[in-house]
């Protein structure tokens, strides 16, 4: 076993354990944190494939932003496990179907030897000055520029739609306009009354 293999199996073991933890953990917050660990270790495996841009972006986007918001929501929920289990038997056939499909796909990949995938050559090692980021940028903005722009537009539409669907004007909220707050002048709020000092009453 070479050192590279050792590192790979080390991260792969952590990744599998974390992924298993995600679906078996009883506490949803624990499950979300284990998912963070799974993302992180899979990013380490990508680093081993010399895909440093994708690896770092995975951490940046999923660990740094998506999972934070996920945790944010999960932490506030009071999840009732008994109610979640109610539909278990009715959903079982669908779940079993998906699982069977996944197993078949994995078998095809792992048993590639029989399907003739094993003859595909390993990618050549990259030259020393190779920059993953530059290469990806060049491809995205030249060869794949239309798919990329279309995907961006679709995502933008999805964002706008999500906001438009959930935004509702509520009459009872007390809305404050900061410009109005800052625009207040002293004369509107305070009246200074000139009061000459009076002598102490005699008596």
């Amino acid at each position, binding site marked *: 076993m070479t*050192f590279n293999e050792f590192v790979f199996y080390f991260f792969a073991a952590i990744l599998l354990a974390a992924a298993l933890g995600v679906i078996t953990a009883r506490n949803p*917050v624990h499950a979300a*944190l284990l998912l*963070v660990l799974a993302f992180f270790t899979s990013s380490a495996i990508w680093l081993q494939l010399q895909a*440093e*841009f994708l690896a*770092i*972006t995975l*951490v*940046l986007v999923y*660990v*740094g*932003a998506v999972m*934070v*918001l996920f*945790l*944010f929501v999960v*932490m*506030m929920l009071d999840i009732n496990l008994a109610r979640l289990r109610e539909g278990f038997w009715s959903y079982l056939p669908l779940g079993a179907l998906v699982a069977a499909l996944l197993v078949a796909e994995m078998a095809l990949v792992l048993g590639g030897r029989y399907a003739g995938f094993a003859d595909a050559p390993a990618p050549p090692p990259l030259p020393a000055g190779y*920059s*993953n*980021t530059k290469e990806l940028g060049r491809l995205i903005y030249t060869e794949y520029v239309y798919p990329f722009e279309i995907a961006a537009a679709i995502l933008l539409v999805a964002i706008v739609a999500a906001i438009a669907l959930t935004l509702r004007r509520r009459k009872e909220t007390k809305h*404050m306009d*900061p410009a109005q707050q800052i625009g207040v002048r002293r004369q509107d709020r305070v009246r200074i009354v000139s009061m000459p000092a009076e002598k102490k009453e005699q008596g």
Partner: protein
Amino acid sequence: MSAVFQPVVNFGAWLWGLLATVVVWMFGREFAPYVLYTIEILLLIVCIVAPLMIAVAYLTLWERKMIGWMQVRIGPNRVTFFGIPWLGGLAQPVADGLKLLVKEIIVPSGASKFLFILAPIMAIMPALAAWAVVPFSPELVLADVDAGLLYLMAITSMGVYGIIIAGWASNSKYAFLGALRSAAQMVSYELAMGFALVCVLMAAQSLNLGEVVRMQQGDWGLAGWFWIPLFPIFLVYIIAGVAETNRSPFDVAEGESEIVAGFHVEYSGMAFAVFFIAEYANMILISTLASVMFLGGWLSPFPQAWGALGAPSFGWLLLKAFFVVSCFLWFRATFPRYRYDQLMRLGWKVFLPLTIGWIVVLGAWMQTPLWIWWK
């Protein structure tokens, strides 16, 4: 100078040779280079983290002293080393550290114990790991990687987990409120910070931090640094940095007048100290990064023609980082705390459009001859 250190260097080389022999004997020829490399990297990490910890300790003293002077007080001036009076106050961080070290760590009842202990570790990990790609001088950098800026963004974005986990695991309402505030705040300001970094990498044409500094090198000293073409971005970065480190005036996550001490209400002793160290280490990190990206890093502010004064050195970086970190303390002494809705408005409605707008402006500017920061 070098003649004096020669015996030390020789001794070091001899020790390293001895270590190499032992490692080869223990792990065999195949694994020995990897093990030796790991040991070497670990030693270098100690060389970065140990001075950083001392800097954190004395930053707390500097903060109390400086804010004291700003508020016409004296600040800590009692605790000295060996009873020498003119060192008054200098041993204060040591005393504080010792006090926290011997205090009991109380785990609240009903708290998730594992996560409760994990949270401070998650808070300090990114604050230390980010230093791997920071260039201290032209040759001095632990990992000279091409995707340095990306790595920084990814690692610093993980800092929020320590706070969220601490708030949730404490089983306390105040801690939880602090964690929620902090999560929303840090995600909002990370966007502005990310776009600010996009501007920097556009101007520098590279994600490598060493390249970012080299791009700012020129004949005119500080006029060649990126703080001039990226001035609005520089301000956004500093202010977003204050918000990211949960420092006053954006310290609503702690907000002692509303939620006692926010996410670390339930922490005591060393567990609290680790949060404290993480906050100050983050502050030093942000100010060092601001110096590297906008203030020319190790470059001298004077023209290169001025001889020794114009020569690049680690000292300049230190000086710049010290200036920026002192500004952080200055903000704390000056501004009242932001209201939460104001803070969110600043992040989303001011900084985000500003940084996105500046990316467009910068892209157009760089196509014209008016852009004089090309090398």
